[in-house]
């Protein structure tokens, strides 16, 4: 019986050591950062559009992956809630914009793809600028909103890990592949103009 107990102890120690050595390789270099700088909602022909400016900085690991032709997928998530004092806030909009940053090793060009539409960029900086500027993002039709009612929106920008290759997801230095901004909130209300369909929005 004593032998069995010793065996168990040995097994447990071994397992612990294995885990530690595997995860111990982790080393974090320069930190990747993302933050939402400016959000500007506007209404054009009955549709809510969103202009978002981001500040974005990728770490060496990501840049390395990109330069070797591995595409990275980013998500711009938007949530709009109507506050409810008696229950959780009512979710009105929950949508996301998928942007893909890739480098063609053959033609040595950068490219930012949004849906079916892709924009080439001559350099990494240009591509990053393209990526971090969102113009006229059609979110939803304004008739979803009650006029003169205040809504709270929140925007977040992040790297979509699910789109990474499996081994990359499992990378021991997981921090290398984590990039996400904090939720940036903004509130707005729709003022319905009786004469014209174009409406104005109130910012923060």
């Amino acid at each position, binding site marked *: *019986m004593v032998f*069995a107990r010793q065996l*168990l102890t040995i097994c447990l120690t071994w397992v612990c050591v294995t885990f530690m050595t595997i995860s111990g390789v982790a080393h974090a270099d320069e930190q990747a950062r993302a933050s939402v700088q400016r959000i500007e909602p506007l209404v054009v022909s009955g549709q809510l559009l969103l202009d978002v400016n981001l500040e974005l900085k990728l770490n060496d690991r990501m840049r390395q*992956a990109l330069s*070797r032709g591995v595409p990275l997928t980013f998500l711009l998530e938007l949530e709009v809630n109507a506050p409810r004092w008696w229950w959780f806030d009512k979710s009105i909009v929950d949508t996301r914009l998928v942007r893909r940053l890739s480098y063609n*090793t*053959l033609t040595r060009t950068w490219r930012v793809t949004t849906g*079916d539409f892709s924009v080439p960029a001559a350099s990494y900086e240009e591509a990053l600028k393209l990526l971090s500027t969102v113009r006229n993002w059609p979110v939803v039709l304004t008739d979803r909103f009650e006029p003169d009612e205040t809504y709270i929106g929140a925007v977040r920008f992040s790297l979509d890990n*699910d789109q990474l290759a499996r*081994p990359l997801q499992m990378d021991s230095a997981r921090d290398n592949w984590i990039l996400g901004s904090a939720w940036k909130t903004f509130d707005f209300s729709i003022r319905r103009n009786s004469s014209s369909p174009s409406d104005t929005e109130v910012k923060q």
Partner: protein
Amino acid sequence: MSRRTRLLLVLGAITGAGLFVLLAWSTGSASRLAQFHELLVYLNVALALGLFGWVLGLSIKLIRQLRRNKFGARLTARFAVAFALIGVLPGALIYTVSIQFMSRSIESWFNVRVDSALDAGLALGREALDAQLNELDTRARSLLPSFANASDAELPALLDRVLEITGVREAAVITSSGRPVAFVTEKLSTLLPQGPPAGVLQRLRLSGSYASAETVSNQAIEGDPSGLILRVILPLGSSAQTPGALVRSEVRWLQLIKAVPEELVMNAEEVREGYRDYQELALSRDGLRQLFAVTLTLALLLAVFAAMAVALFLSKRLVQPLLALASGTRAVSIGDFRPLNEPPQNDEVGQLTRSFNAMTRQLEEARRLVDMNRRQLEQSKLYTEGILANLSAGVLVFDEQFRITLFNQGAQSILGVDLRSAKGRPLETVPGALPLATTIKRSFSHLTATDSERLHWQEQFDINLAGDDAPDKPHTTTLLARGTHLSMDGRGNGYVVVFDDITAVISANRTVAWGEVARRMAHEIKNPLTPIQLSAERLAMKLGDRLEPNDAQLLTRATNTIVNQVTSLKHMVDEFREYARKPVVVFKPVDLNHVIEEVLILYGWDPNTEVSAADASGVLFESHLTDGLPLVRGDQTQLRQVIHNLLSNSRDAFSEQGQGGTIRVTTEQINATDNSQPAIRLVVSDDGPGFSAQLLQQAFEPYVTTKAHGTGLGLAIVKKIVDEHGGYIDLSNRRDGGARITIVLVPMESEVDDIADEDDNHGSN
């Protein structure tokens, strides 16, 4: 183990195995389960933890049982360790090898040669594209002079030529703002030239020309299967030669777009994708290693814990029938013979259990037999003890030191002492038993001293015992005792003495002896008496006249004395003869009541009142005669004498005391009980002084009397007559004072037996 537990276990095993298979599947990057990989890892970890918990629980339980030295725990532990080793060691070995193998092979994938080969491939692709681009650029440049001084109207024709010469897909002249001036294409459906990408125009102003391979973003719209185009933009120079033109300063550009050959594109793309995949893998080799390591470690943990759990569980199950057997053995040892539950399997353990049950049954049977024998033995012992207790003879058993170990009721009643407190003590300590003890010891020592061949001694002796009624007046009892050594288990370990009160026997012997003496005496004495009397009378008659008056007077006195004494002597001899007379009895049916009445009348008894008047001394007679008694077989005269003797005895007893009293005569019939015959009882009782203890012993012997003038033959004759009649007589004292004489006679019906008795009597006398 219940059916439900088994089902749960099987389900758990299947779930665990399934979970692990799913995890293994999900490690493949192409798997659809890939997105659940993390969840699966956690689930498997949870499973492993659960198994670990189970193992821990079972182990703790086992250890606790070991500590408490619970029966069977040691065996279970040994089994468990063995099974666990079988499960764990190979698992650990395979795990180690796999981990080593895996890290080595992953490293080997990413060697320098593959790396450089891919790099070279990519470079080759780029070179190919560049070559195409250069060729296009050179051709375009060679065509540029033909555009010099060409008017706007000439441009389409020129462009057509370019199309023909260079084989491009599209040729256009655009302004510096990107507006097309002229446009020719192979594809008729296209109305507008493909504009240069944003930013290119700005760069054109700086660099002066542009040549690049481009990826077409939307192949469907462009209708370009390859997805790669070559775009060359060259300056056409200013159109200053055109007179009258408003915008003189405007710079024009020639744009040529050519599709890259499909084959080249495909190969290049292949290389690019391969390169990308490889880089992806190379970037994530740690991740890969971790992926496999986690999966393998989980596999090991699951296998090890499952093996240990199964080992603990199985060992318990294996040991269980053995434990059941062991507890059964224990139960048998404390006398519980219930059979064990027989396991349904027909394996060795099942057979063992069955044979154990068979053995238990046999044991139980044997024990039952032993019990039965013991009970029978006890019963027989009780029976023996009962016999001993009811034996009229006294039995005393001593150990080597003459301490009493056993006695019976007979001994107590004969000795008239209570021996219950004397058990374990010498007989001498019992009050009044000292003579007996001395005699017994002496006899045993004599027996030892003589070294006789006989095994027992026999001694007859008298001891004085305190009477029941008068403790201060001891009476003598004759005892006949026999003693032997008690020999059990082949060695002497005590003494047995059996003794009996033979006073009555001796008395009877005396009676017989007296009868003989009396008969001879009567015969010898009576003969000379008559001549003596006649001689004395003759002396008186013949000499009376011749003598002096004084002498004559003396003679007369002397002869009278002689005659009187001889008469008295004669009378005595007659009585003797009467006692010793050979019975010449004639048995006839006799009405006992009638005989009693006849005798009672002589004593002044009145048949009407059944009571006599008190006579001078104050004694009266009373009768309680039962009517309708069966006739008694007997001699009327002798029976009359019996009654006469009894009544006169009683009356004499009163008269000696000088007081009055009542004498009661009772007859009744004793009904037949089981085997005894019906009988008639005659009781004569009085309220006088009763018999003394000494007299009770010897009353039937001749010459034993308390009377001043009695011959002492009265009761002896009564006894003799009753004996001759086949009845029996008993003397006793009434509880409330007075004597009580009981005579039991047989009625007429049982004549045959009595005649036989009579013959016996004749013979013995």
